[in-house]
């Protein structure tokens, strides 16, 4: 009977020592931290193709999206007109006559 009592006391003391050292506390505190980690992994934003040059989202087929897309394209078309004019200008360039 005394052996049992001594054994229980030893176990309690060991448990107390471990708790006091913080080992058990850290173990218990580490448990919850894994949950947010896994949650964060599952809630990371998925790679989505970004609309280019002011276009609406690629999966948006609404009237507003079509209007936005055509406006974005028109802006690029105007840019193309400018680019084309610049080609003409560069090809008709004349050097300032040098004299000496």
């Amino acid at each position, binding site marked *: 009977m005394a052996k049992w009592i001594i054994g229980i006391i030893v176990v309690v003391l060991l448990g107390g020592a471990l708790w006091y050292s913080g080992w058990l506390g850290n173990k218990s505190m580490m448990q919850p931290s894994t949950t947010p980690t896994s949650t964060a992994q599952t809630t990371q934003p998925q790679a989505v193709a970004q*609309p*280019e*040059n002011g*276009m609406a989202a*690629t999966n*948006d*087929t609404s*009237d507003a*999206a*079509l209007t936005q*897309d*055509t406006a*974005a*394209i*028109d802006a*690029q*078309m105007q*840019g*193309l*007109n400018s*680019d*084309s004019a*610049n*080609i*003409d*200008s*560069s*090809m008709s*360039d004349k*050097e*300032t*006559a*040098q*004299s*000496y």
Partner: protein
Amino acid sequence: MKTLNYIFFLIALSLGLITLVPVVALAQTNVTGAVNTSAAVTTGNTGASVNANSSITLTAAEKTAITRGNTEIDRRSAALTDLNTRIQAMQKVTDAFKQGISASITAEINTLASLKAKIDADVDLATLKADIQSITSSYRVFALVLPQGRIAAAADREVTIVSMMSTLGGKLQTRIQAAQQGGADVTAMVTALNDIAAKLQDAQTQAEAAVTVSASLTPDNGDATKMKSNTAALTQARADIKTGATDLAAARKDVTSIIAGLASVKTTASASSTTQVSQ
């Protein structure tokens, strides 16, 4: 038949995306090589930084020559700087390509700046005369690099628009299919959609051709035969760009007609349902 049209459109879109890659790759290789030719401009020693012209007596004609030379150098520098800005805005090429071509243009600008500084600092008339004459000889490089860069930029823009219109085409296709499932007659819209696909495909081809014909040209350095062939190539490239622009304008009109058609279908359906409710 409509199903075949849809399939054709999808194939055309796929081809457009596939051909996009070689255009970009082509631009990366050829244009870079061409612009590197700007290194042909040489100015010699530019070490003198003092106003050495005060040590020689300049005639009025010589002063006029210097002024004209500096004006021409400033004009070219401004044009190259503007081109450099446009190159930075190109979208369908890699950053490495842009940096490469930008570095070449910047080198040309720096060369011109050095030449201008050298002219201002020349200490003897013979050197001054040679430097002013080099402005004219270096023009052949400028006369090639500038249109080459402009053509590459325009081709990049056309490919960008092709990509944007392809995206829009997919959306229009979805809307047309929905309208068809609602019982609407979508024949005209499908025809326009197919025309968009064809026009985008050709615009892509034209942009690619413009880069192909122009990017590998090298300065003529006064060779009349080469000057003629370069001019012909640049003229062809410009024509390609214009054809591509015409294609894109036609495609844009098709977009307008389809959107109008979709609105008409919606209006008709709305009016029909209203009539049914009122009966």
